[in-house]
């Protein structure tokens, strides 16, 4: 790692860092507005502190050679499974959802880190696929699906769906042959109705039903969705000015600092600001795909594809949700939503990408 200096200067990915920084700054500016009139104090300063910590984590992860992670990938997945199972039994509930583990005063959401563990595991699987027997390959695929199901059972259906989407995306991009992926996907899709009866909770069913027919519950679950659409739409072209979004400032948006920060942003900055943020995310995702194509090994490339998928699905699902294109699920907006676990997870993920980028020409 010594002697990396020259390398660093020559190959440091300014594009990636710049885009991440842009999104993070937008996130902080927006969070200041979103948390100004909420009863909880100190949300903004906490986020600033964790942004700084996150920057450190990003840098550190970038400096570590990503290839080191191959050795611990399965161990991390195992740890993640244990942690998620732990949440099921001894987790801390916040607003009725049990998603956190107490860790010496800090609250950690293991399902967030589970995403990373799954991405690392699938990257290693893709990386060493040629050296593995069919049995080994199948057993590892089963292990990864087991992790996804475990998250669903926790229960955190949003995250489980998201991890499932990441796994599916990586599989579609990185599989040598597509037919096993498509057949497997088809089988799973056929089994999806079972979810309705055996996995989904009533509140989750209600959200989906409300999404399909918003008029069925205009004051309950549909209320959040409608208010979010009002917020986004009322921003019109140039917005209501920072700190002047009425839907935000008068608390018509639910949890506007975690699930609905995009509505706040779109309301106060209008179509101009909203499309800027969407384009920034798009640029970031495309850039990560670009890095993946340049990666010099399969592990690094798959890692980048996984992170790009994670970033993309978070952004897509969250924005679709707040604009009424998807049911209301607790999916955060990367680097913009308030939340330590989410922030740290994305800093590590983007650090990994930076690490891959930094070493694309290394011998």
């Amino acid at each position, binding site marked *: 790692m010594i002697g990396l200096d020259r390398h660093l200067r020559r190959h440091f990915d300014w594009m990636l860092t710049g885009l991440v920084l842009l999104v993070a700054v937008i996130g902080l500016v927006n969070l200041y507005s979103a948390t100004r009139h909420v009863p909880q104090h100190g949300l903004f300063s906490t986020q600033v502190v964790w942004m700084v910590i996150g920057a450190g984590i990003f840098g550190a992860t970038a400096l570590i050679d990503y*290839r*080191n992670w*191959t*050795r611990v990938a399965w161990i991390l997945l195992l740890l993640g499974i244990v942690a998620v199972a732990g949440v099921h039994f001894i987790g801390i509930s916040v607003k009725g959802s049990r998603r956190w583990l107490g860790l010496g005063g800090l609250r950690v959401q293991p399902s967030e880190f589970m995403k990373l563990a799954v991405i690392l595991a699938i990257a290693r699987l*893709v*990386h*060493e696929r*040629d050296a593995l027997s069919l049995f080994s390959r199948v057993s590892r695929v089963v292990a990864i699906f087991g992790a996804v199901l475990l998250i669903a059972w926790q229960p955190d259906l949003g995250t489980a769906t998201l991890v499932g989407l990441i796994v599916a995306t990586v599989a*579609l*991009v*990185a*599989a*040598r042959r597509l037919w096993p992926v498509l057949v497997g996907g088809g089988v799973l899709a056929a089994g999806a109705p079972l979810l309705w009866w055996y996995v989904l909770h009533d509140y989750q069913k209600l959200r989906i039903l409300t999404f399909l027919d918003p008029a069925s519950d205009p*004051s309950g679950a549909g209320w959040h969705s409608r*208010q979010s*659409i*009002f*917020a*986004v*739409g*009322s*921003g*019109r*072209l140039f917005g209501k000015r920072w700190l002047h979004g*009425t*839907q935000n*400032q*008068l*608390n*018509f948006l639910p949890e506007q600092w975690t699930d609905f920060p995009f509505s706040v942003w*779109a*309301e106060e900055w209008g*179509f101009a600001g*909203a*499309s800027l943020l*969407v*384009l920034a*995310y*798009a640029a970031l*995702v*495309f850039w990560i*795909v670009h890095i*993946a*194509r*340049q*990666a*010099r*090994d*399969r*592990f*690094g490339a*798959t890692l980048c*594809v996984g992170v790009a998928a994670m970033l*993309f699905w978070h952004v*897509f699902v969250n924005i679709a949700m707040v*604009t009424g*294109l998807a049911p209301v699920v607790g999916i955060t907006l990367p680097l913009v939503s308030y939340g330590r676990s989410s922030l740290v997870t994305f800093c590590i993920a983007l650090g990994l990408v930076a690490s891959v980028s930094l070493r*694309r*020409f290394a*011998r």
Partner: protein
Amino acid sequence: MLPFLDRPTSGTGLPELQRRGGLVVIVLGCAFFLLLGRLCQLQIVRGDRYYRRSTDNFVKREPLRAVRGLVKDRSGVVLADNRPAYDVLVTPRHFTPAARERLARLLALAPSEQDELDARLARARDPARRGHDLGRSVVGIPDVDRDRMALVRQAGAELPGVEVRDVSRRTYPYATLAAHALGYLNRVNARDLEQHAGEGYDDEDFIGRSGVERQWESYLRGKKGHEVYVVDARGRRKSDEAAESLLGGERSVAPSPGHDVVLTLDVELQRLAERAMRKHPAGAVAIVDVTNGKVLALVSKPGFEPNIMTGGLSRVEEEALESDPYKPFVDRALQLTYFPGSTYKVVTALAGLASGAVDMDDEILCRGWHELGRHTFRCGKAHGKVQLAEALTQSCNIYFWEVAVRVGMDRIGETARDLGFGAPTGLGLNGDAAGRVPWRAAYEKAGFRIGHTLNTSIGQGDTEVTVLQLALAYAAIANGGQLWVPQFIERIETADGRIVSEPRPELRRRIAATDAALAELRRGMWGVVNDPRGTAFGVRVDGTTLAGKTGTAQVRKLQAQPDASWHPHRDHAWFAGWAPADEPRVAIVVLVEHGGKGGHVAAPIAAEIATGAAELGAIGGGGGVVAVGVDPTAEGPLAVDDGPVAVDDEPVREDGDDDLAAADDGAADAGAADAGAADAGAAGAVAAPDEGAADAGPLSDGGTP
């Protein structure tokens, strides 16, 4: 470190990615394009619409209700006032079941109050309701006391969606006094909103239901304003500077209070009249200023408590009131019509004099009975030879029957019309019934009988009047012939005293009677109270002069008068007259429904009112006195016979609404069954068709104690 199998060349890490890269880019591009398209749709295409929706979220327009105008008596005493009150409001969106339970516990709500609260909430949540908005507060518990108001205010945030609003509520300081004339209010209903669409009523307004409150609603209600303010998502009001700036210059508009209505009513006189009626459960009194037609008192018994009516009744209370046999909501002074009985004899007298069929000095012999065909019509007693004035004094039926036979029914009808009977008085309050003046033509189809004319001449048969009509007619006789349009409004003024409208007394007509004829009538009616032979001589009070005519209107043929104080078949007791006797100031009409004999029951009430009014100074001295000559000594005193007269069995029609046609059918039947006694039989049958000819007997007023 794991061996890196596919090292070392850069850019070939994942050949599948290279292969599928183009597709990945296209898919990602489509996805982001979808998001941008959605943003474009929401923010640009539909932006203005959502902007309005978000503005509607936080801008609340609350109507500011105008303070209702006061109702005052002629000297400014407030009869209908406003008091501060508190409504507990609930906002359906924020008023959770838990909050409802807490509120019920906190205020210890009675089950009926809880039911009402739930009903109001259900109505507010009904999506079909006009202006449906879960974020708008509605009245949950109306008119709570100060203790409850304080409890709710203290609870504050523990009761989401609950607030207290200061309101003003109608109150009637004199409670039941003049309840019919003043009327009452209650909340508008769906039908009112439909009827008064465009007049700015909303479902929390009150509206005048009867009396002055209803008639002068448009003056009293004032003009609503509205308040504009900003609320947050939980409905909490924001009043800081930032919130104000969100209103974008929209300003609140202050309401303008309603006008005050000053009545001609005299609260002291009203109280006096109501007190005089204290012994009787049902009846009416009208007191009218004879010099200008101003109504000074209007009593209708039984009354009701407008304060309770205005607060809103429970269903049980409402049903109890509606099934009350006394029908307390009917205004007996204006709305109901009654047989006037002997008080109507002045009409027959004037008809006779005007037509020349009889002269004031003509004497008619009363032997105590009158034969008509096979039937005998009886008078109270044998009065001997009587002239007009004496006939009135003693209420001699024979005299008026004779006059009636001479002038005919239609001549009596014309005079009645001239005196204002058979048409609404023009007061315009509480229905103001027309009453009924019978015409010969109406009987022709079924066969006219002279008995119909006889019935009419003494205010029976099909003759029906209202108490106020009688008062105005007697005022015209007392004041020398001026028939006034009754006036109930002294003036209408703004809350700060500026006069909006001040109606002048309005003369309806000068009646056709000559001054001499009217003077003769007055002389006769002076005797009713002040001549020992008079039918109300027993009630005279020294120092008070009262004049007038008693009446005992038969409701139904009875063998014996029932003992109960009020019975649906008993005679109505009347007194119609004026005071003071020789310088008339006020006309007084008293009706005691099913009260019995006019001279015994109604006249004492009139005397008590006249005495009281004199003490109050309401009728003593002062200007506006009509000077009319009454010479009590013109006739020498006759033998005193104050004894009650046996009332003949006589069929009289029920106090119902069966019309002339129905009565005529009965008359035809009766006539057929009782051939040979056509006239008398028909006369009876007209009165009580259902009782048949067998019961048909001579008519008599009998109101001559």
